[in-house]
């Protein structure tokens, strides 16, 4: 397999967050529309300055990205729709970067957002996928909590992770979130409170679960020259990978697709795990964080629990991680959860954080994971953003 070409002078800029709400009567079009408005505001571009759009949303139906173009009255020469949940941000970034690099578009707005009405999470879970509808949801309708409980219990049994390990990550993320203005959780979390939280699907506790909410995230992809012309702080896209359905013969998931592609990622970026100043993982359940520490090469498979015990994960810690609080503390605004890490990583390497800043952050690794189609997350991806 030949190595993928690099991304040249493609840059990422204009991180935008449409503030999260636990429940909202507004539709996905509202949140996505406000994200585009935020991008225009942040960049100073007129609507006509955007000629590409990449959309991720679970609740946009029956519309697709096409419907959104008329809803927002934008004329485009490039359009994509990425229905990949927690991996959608990374995949959107990859698609947009190649479009800009090849000249198919000059400025691509990547947006993700979802509505959250009172019953919408149940509805979207019941019909999340054909396999899920046929072979998961009828067994107790526990949703992702149950699917991740299987993986978590298996990981704990196999590699010796403990509730305290997961709790340490949750506590650190909450500590980071206390500085971030859009986090839905605004009070400190102690390890004791974590351990005392009620079981939802053993060994998954309440504080292992993200809170579904409404909101949106967005960023712009363009050439460096364009960003400089607009006077926008930007991050370079040093490398990016994605993988789908990586290990179909694993009877249960204990590793993600990153294992197959991380060498290519670091080679493309010209940096290694030691050069990463800040890590943003997809944190829909703490076990997936530990899996990403391992599979992205920060430690070996099975050493995740030891890695957690050796490090501290606050913004000022030995391994700054999920620095805005991640979905566990900010909330999961549907597909926007797959964009949260990119937007926060971009803010970190451009020195424009809304919360706590990691000193001298030059390289951010952002990782995505998504789509429990049946018994495992199928999509994985990662990108390395470099300071200008």
């Amino acid at each position, binding site marked *: 397999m030949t190595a993928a070409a690099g991304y040249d002078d493609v840059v990422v800029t204009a991180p935008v967050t449409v503030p999260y709400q636990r429940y909202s009567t507004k539709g996905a079009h509202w949140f996505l529309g406000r994200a585009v408005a935020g991008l225009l505001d942040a960049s100073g571009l007129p609507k006509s300055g955007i000629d590409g759009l990449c959309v991720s949303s679970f609740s946009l139906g029956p519309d697709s990205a096409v419907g959104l173009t008329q809803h927002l009255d934008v004329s485009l020469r490039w359009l994509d729709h990425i229905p990949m949940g927690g991996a959608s941000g990374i995949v959107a970034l990859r698609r947009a970067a190649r479009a800009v690099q090849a000249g198919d578009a000059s400025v691509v707005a990547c947006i993700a957002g979802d509505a959250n009405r009172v019953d919408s*999470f*149940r509805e979207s*879970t*019941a*019909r999340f996928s*054909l*396999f899920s*509808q*046929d*072979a*998961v*949801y*009828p*067994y*107790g*309708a*526990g*949703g992702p*909590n*149950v699917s991740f*409980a*299987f*993986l978590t*219990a*298996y990981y704990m*049994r196999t590699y010796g992770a403990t509730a305290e390990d997961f709790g340490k990550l949750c506590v650190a993320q909450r500590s980071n979130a206390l500085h971030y203005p859009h986090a839905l959780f605004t009070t400190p979390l102690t390890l004791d409170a974590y351990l005392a939280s*009620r*079981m*939802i*699907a*053993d*060994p*998954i506790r309440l504080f292992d679960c993200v809170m579904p909410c409404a909101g949106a995230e967005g960023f712009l992809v363009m050439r460096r020259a364009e960003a400089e012309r607009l006077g926008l702080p930007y991050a370079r896209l040093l490398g990016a990978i994605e993988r789908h359905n990586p290990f*179909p013969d694993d*009877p*249960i998931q204990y590793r993600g697709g990153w294992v197959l592609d991380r060498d290519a990622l670091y080679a493309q970026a010209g940096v290694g795990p030691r050069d990463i100043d800040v890590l943003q993982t997809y944190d829909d359940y703490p076990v997936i964080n530990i899996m990403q520490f391992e599979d992205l090469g920060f430690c070996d498979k099975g050493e995740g629990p030891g890695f957690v015990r050796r490090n501290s994960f606050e913004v000022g810690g030995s391994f700054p991680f999920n620095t805005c609080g991640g979905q566990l503390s900010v909330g999961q605004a549907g597909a926007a959860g797959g964009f949260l890490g990119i937007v926060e990583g971009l803010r970190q390497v451009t020195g424009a954080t809304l919360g706590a800043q990691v000193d001298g952050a030059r390289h951010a690794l952002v990782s995505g994971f998504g789509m429990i189609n*049946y*018994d495992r997350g199928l999509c994985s991806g990662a990108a390395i953003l470099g300071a200008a």
Partner: protein
Amino acid sequence: MTGGVRRKNPILKTRQPTLPPALRSRVALGMTAGAAVGRLDLQQCEQCGTVQYPAREVCRSCLSGQLVWRPQDGLGTLLSETVSRASMELYFRERLPWRVGLVQLAAGPTVVAYVHAACAAAPADVRVEVALDRAGQAVLVAMPLDAAVTLAEDPRLHDMTCDPTHRKILVTDGKSEVGQAMVRAFAAAGASQVWVGHAEPWKQPPGFAALAELPQVTLVPLDVTDGQSVTELAGVIGGKVDIVVNTADHHRTYGIAGRRGVETAQAEMEVNYLGLLRLAQAFGPALRGRAADGDAGAVAWVNILSIFALANFPPHGTYSAAQAAALSLAQCLRAEMRPAGIRVVNVFPGPVDEPWNQLVLPPKIAPKGLADAVVKALKATVEDVYPDPVARDWLERWRADPKTLERELMAASPSSAG
């Protein structure tokens, strides 16, 4: 007769039945066909043999479009499990928590399954069985390897069964040999109350007097050919019956040429088809209304049909036609009872060892064997019962090709066609 109508407390809101999620893709319904008779079927590729799960349109391995449902032994390893203490569906919320797990089948796929309380903690060897849940859909259950453990022993999974223990049962005709055997079987199975319908009180067949001595038994007047009789009984006990077992049967042994007029055929239709319709109209709403009463709720409706319902057996031609009509109506009843979670169990015996089958060669199923099969079916989760070798032989031939069976039956006895 037991006392009058039990009146509901008007202040208490009647509980509405809730059901597990019933939505399935069309291809996934293939598993339900096996589950209806208690058999675990999974898709297997005709080209490469790969076992598939969840159900697919094409083979996951070779992409062939030829997937067929084949019986599986279900042996596997419980890889991981959880106790789900929260649910998005009311049915589960009313019954939390649930033990569910991931099982890797020796045949290949990993399946999500309910985990029986008697299973050891993961990792453990298990045997995956299929069951019909209260929505009538097939679900997988990981059972311990010990074959003696039953679904009903797990309190959560018990809800999928229609276990007659401690239930109140109406046997619509208790005078026939089948009816009497059925009453005895339910009494032995621990039913708390068996109402025994009897038409023509002046007739006292052998054994019937002794039946009335059983402590659980109450004789009730019931003539399924008489709408008023059916309605009156439903008015008295309809609000209490948990399981209706329709044993009413009128069986004569004529084809078309052997009999002038339509009186015999009419009588068969009056009992076997219209009798079921009258019962369903009178008792169906009452059962549906009590489906949510928990362990004491209405759960099932059993129709004792005949394997002749599948294809006409010419020596019993008009009877076969009445059975075919009854089967068709029973399918309608099943559809109408399903939203309440009431299981309609259709039983298709081959020739029963009773007077009207005197001239039929053995093997014939004894009334007691038939009754025991019904109790067993209710303790499990099946909805179609073929209780004897002749019935299963017919079924196999009918499934293989109904037309071939029709030709075979043109010159045949039921046990030795062809």
